[in-house]
């Protein structure tokens, strides 16, 4: 997927003006947050599981070569063919080659953020292979020709009317305002695809090193359809998805659904190990696993290593006041919200994604909800410092901040300036916010109003009131 993260301010403005999106976002993030809070409160072991998961991930990353090596060895031993891609272009080439060599003409795919990173569908379509998204939300946005807007609710920005019109146009279905009817239509169309597909494509929520298993967590059950019925199973996953042991899975499964949607466990968890065995009633004859580096080994080397602990639950999105306001598309790439604001610059390069670390209020909510304790607020700050040292902040901004710091450190100077500002504000704006400052400060007010200085500085009010009371 081509990143447009550098357009964040423009994309955000568009999102803020979209009334349907605003209503949907408010409802979705509120609902997810509420359900998560309830599920966490109802499960006394959450805190401990969180500590443990964070520690397992930290230790695994510190020896990623070992664990990944074990995973490849065990998966291969059980009949899987493991491929490794350095970057997106190479991953696309491998995916297309595998599909062609397997004689696939139709592939069904369940949700995979990693596959979005490499524009997987484009690669197969260019090779003349039809790829159908099977997660309902993904299916809808694929029909509409759009990109997902939320990790676990990709079509959160669409209304039932829009979806009905889309099904009418693309699938020849009669119009309806019934959501169950829409779901039934999609089920019927997708069932035919599942039964006809030569290859099922999945992501991986976890890769289990000691058994070589690929683990999928879904509610719809599309992940299991696509990995039981078609002759070939291709799993696409980032190298950081590995966990050491099958016995580690329960810890992560206690955290992921609770953090994502507030469920104790998603409806379906599939642990898929190698190809079908002799005597098996069904299952794929061929299993391919495509492991993506795509910038991850570079992250592993640096100070942001812990971001690779992410299990893609989406809790940080829902808790983020910026995400709640602008939604996923504004972030301009695969990952959105706080995790996107950290991951995107690291995967596509800070110059490409420079505004994202600023798209945060640093309120800290993302760090609090993260089930694997990624220090997202620290990373956002750190990235801002990187932006500065890489010359990605304007000289005006740097000078302004220096000046601000200088004033704040000198109480006398601050008081004098406050008095002047208060008088000016009363005289020029009568206390109303300033909509446009003169150059060189005009950049500041392009997208926001500048609050007028109060007639009385807060510190003076504080002194007087306290004087009255005490």
């Amino acid at each position, binding site marked *: 997927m081509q990143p447009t993260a550098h357009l964040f301010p423009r994309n955000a403005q568009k999102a803020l003006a979209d009334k349907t999106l605003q209503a*949907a976002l408010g409802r979705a993030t509120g609902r997810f947050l509420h359900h998560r809070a309830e599920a966490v409160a109802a499960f*006394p*072991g959450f805190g*401990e599981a969180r500590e*443990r998961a964070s*520690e397992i991930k930290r*230790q695994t990353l510190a*020896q990623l*070569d*070992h*664990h990944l090596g074990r995973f490849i060895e065990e998966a291969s031993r059980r009949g899987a063919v493991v*491929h*490794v*891609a*350095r970057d997106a272009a*190479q991953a696309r080439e491998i995916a297309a080659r595998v599909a062609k060599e397997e004689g696939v003409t139709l592939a069904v795919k369940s949700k995979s953020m990693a596959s979005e990173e490499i524009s997987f569908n484009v690669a197969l379509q260019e090779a003349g292979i039809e790829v159908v998204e099977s997660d*309902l939300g993904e299916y*809808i946005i694929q029909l509409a020709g759009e990109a997902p807007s939320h990790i676990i*609710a990709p*079509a*959160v920005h669409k*209304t*039932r009317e829009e979806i009905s019109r889309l099904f009418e146009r693309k699938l020849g279905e009669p119009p309806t305002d019934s*959501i169950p009817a829409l779901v039934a239509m999609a*089920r019927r169309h997708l069932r035919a695809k*599942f*039964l006809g597909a030569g290859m099922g494509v999945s992501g991986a929520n976890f890769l289990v090193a000691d058994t070589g*298993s690929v683990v999928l967590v879904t*509610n*719809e*059950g599309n992940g*299991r*359809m696509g990995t*039981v019925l078609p002759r070939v199973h291709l799993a696409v996953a980032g*190298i950081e998805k590995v966990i*050491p042991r*099958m016995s580690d*899975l*329960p810890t992560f*499964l*206690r955290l992921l659904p609770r953090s994502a949607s507030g469920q*104790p*466990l*998603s*409806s*379906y*968890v599939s*642990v898929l*190990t*190698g190809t079908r*065995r002799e*005597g*098996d*009633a*069904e*299952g794929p004859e061929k299993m391919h696993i495509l492991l993506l580096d795509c910038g991850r*080994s*570079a992250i*592993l*080397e640096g100070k942001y290593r812990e971001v690779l602990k992410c299990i893609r639950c989406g809790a940080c999105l829902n808790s983020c006041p910026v995400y709640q306001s602008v939604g996923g598309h504004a972030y301009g790439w695969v990952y959105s919200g706080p995790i996107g604001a950290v991951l995107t610059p690291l995967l596509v390069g800070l110059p490409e994604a420079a505004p994202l670390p600023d798209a945060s209020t640093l309120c800290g909510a993302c760090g609090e909800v993260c089930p694997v304790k990624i220090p997202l607020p620290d990373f956002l700050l750190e990235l801002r410092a990187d932006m500065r040292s890489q010359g990605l902040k304007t000289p005006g901004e740097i000078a302004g901040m220096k000046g601000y710091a200088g004033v704040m450190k000198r109480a006398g100077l601050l008081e004098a300036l406050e008095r002047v500002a208060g008088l000016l504000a009363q005289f020029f704006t009568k206390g109303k916010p300033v909509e446009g400052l003169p150059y060189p400060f005009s950049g500041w007010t392009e997208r926001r109003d500048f609050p007028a200085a109060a007639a009385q500085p807060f510190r003076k009010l504080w002194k007087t009131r306290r004087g009255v009371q005490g």
Partner: protein
Amino acid sequence: MRDVDEREMLFRRLSAALGRHGSPGGTPSSPAGPTPPPGKESGRISRFAEALTAVGGVVLSGTPEEALPVLGEALRAEGVSALFFPQDDAGAREVAEALIPFGPFTLTTGEEVRGGNPASTAGFRTADAGIAETGTVVESSNRGGTLLPGLLSDVHVALLPSHSVVERMDEAFALYAEDPPRNISLISGPSKTADIEQTLTVGAHGPRKIIVLLV
């Protein structure tokens, strides 16, 4: 081989990133113990039933004389007209055949359903295990078992021997840790989606209802 070269290069990048000199590093750290159970140790079956019911599942128990009419009624209420079961699953066959008088139901096969049987179906299968912690039914391809009854049908009826209900997920995975089959499937409720206007709707791809018959 391109893939092998690419793999080698990945491991070189990882070693460099981890500051290793020479080739891949030592043994992994010792396993962290399992997370403690969320509930108390007694009343496993009732905790299983409570957890599955909470996510929209139905749990039936009692003698066949008691359970079969209730099950038949539930299937009719769901509009089910055809029943199928794995050929080698004697328990599932017995229950499905015993339900015929409570119909109208016809028997069909997994292959017919796979071929696009248009009738509304209930798929029967004996489960490997149950998990009390999450109200989960565990089914797998172990010993050639088929997953189609819980995959393609409109209603899934899982036969669960009471003695195979374990307390925690850890115990369920331990059953397969030695030599995992191709497919271990944890089922905790009906197939569902909230992808349209965040409205919870069942039957997205798999069964819209799961009924567990404790045997």
